[in-house]
């Protein structure tokens, strides 16, 4: 009897062990991601940034456009952690308040670009032929404009302003997503499970959104995360060039551009907005790297 008992116990134990070690793709990804410590730190920093974006305005010690002509161009001190600008405005408060601008601009531009690019890529890759030729020709043409030049061209037409910067950066990131998703769609549309769905009479829409799109999602997520950092950088560059946010918006690139007049007397005006951009972009890029490694099926440990 005891022997049977033990055998049953062992069986139970085995089942329990198996349950504990079931490796769903999601669990696998989380496990791989958590092994990359700096990516976890970057994610934590991004979460803090998002919190600042939502609640920062309630925490800042001064109003962002509160002038104080008795304290202009002051260096960092107990009263003004990051110092003040030429109007005596508190730079710490302005940088905290600028967080939501940079995050909103970066996220909305990439989201629009990713949505448009994904839809175009799915259509082109799935239907091939004429639609595909047109979409890819337009993408090629957009790719022929180097880097930020296309964004500048769009702002030149729409006029300067933050919302136009969002449109410009969205247009600028659309072809990247279109190409990525198209490539993935081309390889998935001939796969067995898509053929099977087709033979079962699934509609095109169902095949595209239920069978092909999920296969492209990991690539889209990685590209999306990587694009956020560069979009924030592009948007702040446009503001720096005077084509984006207009004064007195506390946009980091604009604050930096403003600080160049005081490079000799008050270098801190440029220092802190630059650090804010650097750390924000850096955290998105490191997070993106970690995500890419975690989602890459070729990298096994």
């Amino acid at each position, binding site marked *: 009897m005891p022997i049977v008992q033990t055998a049953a116990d062992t069986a139970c134990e085995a089942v329990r062990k198996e349950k504990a070690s079931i490796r769903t793709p999601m669990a696998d990804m989380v496990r791989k991601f958590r092994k990359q410590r700096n990516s976890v730190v970057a994610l934590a920093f991004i979460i803090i940034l998002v919190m600042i974006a939502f609640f920062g305005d309630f925490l800042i010690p001064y109003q962002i456009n509160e002038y104080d002509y008795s304290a202009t161009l002051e260096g960092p001190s107990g009263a003004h952690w990051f110092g003040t600008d030429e109007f005596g405005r508190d730079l710490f408060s302005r940088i905290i308040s600028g967080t939501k601008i940079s995050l909103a601009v970066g996220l909305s531009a990439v989201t629009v670009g990713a949505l448009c690019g994904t839809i175009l890529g799915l259509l082109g890759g799935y239907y091939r032929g004429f639609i595909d030729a047109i979409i890819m020709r337009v993408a090629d*043409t957009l790719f022929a404009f180097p880097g930020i030049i296309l964004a*500048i061209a769009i702002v030149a037409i729409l006029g300067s302003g933050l919302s136009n910067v969002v449109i410009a950066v969205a247009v600028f990131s659309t072809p990247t997503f279109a190409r990525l998703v198209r490539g993935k769609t081309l390889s998935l549309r001939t796969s067995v499970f898509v053929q099977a769905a087709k033979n079962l009479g699934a509609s095109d829409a169902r095949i595209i959104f239920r069978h092909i799109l999920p296969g492209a999602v990991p690539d889209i997520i990685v590209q999306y995360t990587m694009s956020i950092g560069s979009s924030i950088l592009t948007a702040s560059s446009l503001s720096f*060039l005077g084509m984006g946010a207009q004064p007195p918006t506390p946009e980091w690139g604009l604050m930096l551009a403003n600080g160049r007049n005081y490079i000799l007397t008050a270098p801190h005006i440029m220092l802190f907005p630059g650090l804010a951009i650097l750390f924000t972009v850096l955290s998105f890029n490191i997070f993106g790297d970690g995500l890419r490694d975690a989602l890459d099926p070729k990298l096994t440990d």
Partner: protein
Amino acid sequence: MLKYIRRRILGTLPTLLLVVTFVFFFVRLIPGDPARLVAGEQATQADVEVIRVKLGLDKPLGTQYIEYLVGLIKGDLGTSLRTKRPVTTEIAGRIGNTLKLAFITLAWSTVVGVIMGVWSGRHRGKWQDYLGMTISVSGISIPSFWLGFLLIMLFSVKLKWLPTTGASSWKSFILPSVTLGVAIAAIIARFTRSSIVETLKEDYVRTARAKGLKENIVIWRHAFRNSLISVVTVVGLRFGFLLGGSVVAEAVFAFPGLGTLLVESVNYRDYPAIQSLILIFSLQFLVINLVVDILYAALNPEIKLG
């Protein structure tokens, strides 16, 4: 090879025509009346109309487009609304500086990027890799305009070694080039690293090691030579990034190049200049891509040239 080159050049022409068309119609969307802009606020409506005829803006869009294409073939890019001089003159005075800056930057950042990438790749997972990749992820994250100001503060204001503006001597190219090149070097380093890591898994690398070759020879003569092809591709693709980045770097240093000209033209809504500059920028990019394609074919014996 010549046949291949000719075919590649012909293959670029349709894209070029699309770009020209795109730029032409795109810039026509700029709000505001360019004729009014030239005439000035105080001008009478009649004066504005005279200028409109002079600029050819009274003709239908199709005619304007044909005239624009004919002008392009003749090398006529129109007249700048801001300076009243031919756009070609404006561009000719500045393109040399921008190209010089671009090529100097491309040269040093490729060398630095490749060395850093190989160094990280051969020490994969060790502290060297960690250090190299931390530097390069910071390099792609740093706002170049901010980096430019930090360099000005250090080298121009504090040490007084280098000038802050202009393009008068070789010294004026150093700071803009560093500002522009850090991100490029970082991208090339990241790419080279992953390429080296892949190549080092190959059988011929194991063979080379097994026959007792020095690690340096294995890395540079066997692994790196085979990663070179993909490195060339990424360098070519990043040239566009470099051209775009030069707009920002030039703005920081008031560098007399095409980038500052573009920013001035956008601020003035000088559309003949804007459209020509955008065209010139993408033309440079297309030419470089063409050169890269040809280089790629020359480096990679697997590509059939027929």
